[in-house]
């Protein structure tokens, strides 16, 4: 039996929401002091009215219990606001839990950003030492790995250049290279590491795989389900601060995507709140999707409904708010909740030029003749600048639609068996005909 590397007991974290500014003025405190004293010592009766009346506790994490064995690579998935970052911050000891406790065996290295502690004025070499020390490496360790780090980041020629002159790619590579050479027993990694060009991303994933084969315990948060599937054996699924599932990754991903289906209490004007699916750290601010929905292609009057019937053509609609005039490109994918991709469509593939004006506008895309098998589908939606490829908005794992089997005449509804797992379902004609064995044999001989 393996050892437990991370154990979490009843971990909770509460934030006070809406009580006061995150910080205030000392002078205001002094100004309030007489009144507070008055309330406290003289007007004791109405003390309840002045204090705590506006407090609005928000449980970012509630009663988390789990344990992770040594050498396991565990993914943490969940929607925005599910508590993933809070969990990582508590386990990294950046912030303290409100209640509960956690145990860690061995050194913890946490990578919550690329280039932790980099100073723009310092050279690459100086930053390797600074950032490495901050991440918990000793001077000797840094010295020992220095050449490997430089090599991994491919910055040999720029070692004596201040990092403020680095390209963003070099910056990210150097940041990750330092992180990748940390050798703690427990590694906590946030998804922001998954940036950079595709080739470097692959290199990072390979490096992380290598780390996990060395018997280290890795906790990995990502929205890239493909990366989760590739790297992790099991996953924790968080939802609104609670642990909903812990288990094998494929199952966890399915669980997570099923969970992404909107419940009636988080609909905004009848649509899922996009902020729950938005990836802010990837986005600019000029162009934002405001709502995304599905309606029937031939009958838009019927209104928006995420449920369509099998074989029905549907219209994808996205309302966009833009503060600039620009030519953009937009695309969306459709994937089954188990993660298998059905299709991806982009405006430029259809040679459609998407001109955005200032203000609000609706982009429509009719999806015709796509025989999606009954079931639930999620979508990733991206809007970016056509020229420089700057990303404006990214919505991931958005619960786009559910395909229902058409009710047959007698009113009963049949779903095809899910275990078959196809993404397309095409009506086919079956038939059976009895043939005389001898006749057909003779025919073949001829």
């Amino acid at each position, binding site marked *: 039996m393996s050892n437990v590397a991370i154990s979490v007991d009843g971990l909770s974290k509460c934030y006070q929401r809406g009580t006061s500014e995150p910080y205030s003025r000392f002078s205001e405190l002094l100004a309030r002091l007489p009144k507070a004293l008055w309330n406290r010592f003289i007007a004791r009766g109405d003390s309840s009215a002045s204090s705590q009346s506006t407090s609005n506790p928000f449980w970012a994490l509630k009663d988390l219990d789990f344990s992770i064995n040594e050498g396991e690579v565990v993914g943490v998935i969940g929607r925005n606001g599910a508590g993933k970052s809070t969990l990582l911050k508590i386990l990294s000891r950046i912030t303290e839990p409100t209640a509960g406790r956690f145990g860690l065996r061995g050194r913890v290295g946490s990578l919550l950003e690329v280039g*932790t502690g980099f100073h723009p004025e310092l050279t690459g070499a100086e930053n390797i030492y600074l950032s490495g020390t901050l991440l918990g490496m000793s001077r000797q360790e840094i010295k020992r790995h220095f050449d490997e780090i430089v090599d991994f980041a491919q910055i040999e020629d720029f070692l004596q250049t201040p990092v403020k002159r680095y390209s963003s790619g070099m910056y990210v590579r150097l940041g990750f290279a330092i992180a990748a050479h940390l050798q703690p027993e427990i590694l906590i990694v946030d998804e922001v590491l998954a940036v950079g060009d595709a080739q470097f991303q692959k290199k990072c994933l390979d490096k992380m795989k290598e780390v996990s084969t060395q018997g280290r315990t890795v906790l990995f948060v990502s929205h890239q389900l493909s990366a989760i599937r590739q790297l992790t054996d099991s996953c924790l699924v968080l939802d609104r601060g609670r642990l909903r599932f812990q288990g094998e990754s494929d199952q966890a991903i399915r669980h997570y995507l099923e969970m992404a289906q909107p419940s009636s209490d988080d609909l905004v004007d009848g649509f899922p709140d996009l902020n729950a699916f938005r990836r802010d750290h990837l986005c600019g601010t000029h162009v934002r999707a405001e709502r995304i929905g599905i309606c029937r292609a031939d009958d838009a009057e019927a209104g928006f409904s995420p449920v369509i019937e099998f074989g029905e053509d549907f219209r994808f609609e996205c309302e966009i708010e833009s503060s600039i005039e620009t030519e953009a490109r937009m695309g969306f994918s459709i994937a089954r909740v188990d993660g298998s991709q059905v299709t991806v469509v982009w405006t430029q593939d259809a040679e459609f030029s998407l001109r955005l004006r200032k203000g609000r506008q609706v982009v429509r895309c009719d999806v015709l003749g796509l025989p999606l098998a009954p079931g639930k589908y999620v979508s990733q939606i991206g809007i970016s600048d056509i020229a420089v490829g700057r990303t404006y908005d990214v919505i991931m794992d958005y619960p786009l639609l559910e395909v229902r089997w058409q009710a047959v005449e007698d009113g009963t509804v049949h779903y095809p068996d899910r275990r078959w797992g196809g993404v397309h379902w095409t009506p086919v004609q079956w038939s059976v005909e009895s043939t005389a064995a001898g006749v057909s044999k003779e025919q073949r001989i001829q």
Partner: protein
Amino acid sequence: MSTSASQISERDLAVDVPSSDVPMQYFESEGGISLRGFYELWVYRHLVWMLVVRDVKVRYRQTAVGVAWAVLQPALLMLVFNIFFQLLGRQPSEGNVPYVVTFLCGYLPWQLLASTLGAATQSLVAHQNLISKVYFPRAVLPISATVGGLIDFCIACVLLLGLMVWYGVVPPVQIILLPLFVLLSLLISIGAGLWLSALNALYRDIGYVVPFILQVGFFISPVIYETDQLIPGQYRSIYALNPMVGVLEGVRWCILGHAAPTLSSMVISFVTLGLLLVGGMIYFRQIERQVVDRI
């Protein structure tokens, strides 16, 4: 000065330890100062040094005269006060050495406090990006800000050394105690820095108060004058509540052989310093636990 590990219970030991060489450490919300906190601070001492080196490099990398700044400022101020007191016709110092030397003996340690206190006060807020991304004992920040001032102090001491050679001032034997008084001044700076950096994280206007405190402190400490030349005897014990009094008197005693600080004033200074330091540690620890959520 960190989340302290709770006691490892026997049950945990029985289950976890035999099969592994590293024991499990448990963390939970827990206030107070613990030995573990000091140990961790010791583990992270390299980080203090790295941050000091970073600050010094960054400070002087894009400057015209570079490290000369550290000398220029005290030199100019020295001239100004020298002229001022010459015009006044009375110098508030013992006459055996030129006033400029006496002035520097007071001003350099004061400058050490003043520059480090400003940096220490801002240290938590200035690094909020860092403290929300990676764990280290937060006290590293005000401490490294304080130690960083020592570099400038050492450079500025060259000026003092030069003047002493020029005027032929030979230090008495107690010069060997000088590092002790410099250390004392650093401790004052760290104690006040712990308080102010934690307060500044919660109340941003503390940053505006510090220059004012320093300005007042400049005149209620024997920086431009010497205690026994100006402060009437009956007020000296109140005066000594300011821990810098003991430091500055001590420095002049070490370098110039001027009147030694009295025992009573040293004791008073020490007690104030102790309260400042211990109170600072407790308060800082209190704020450290919630600073990431509130900054």
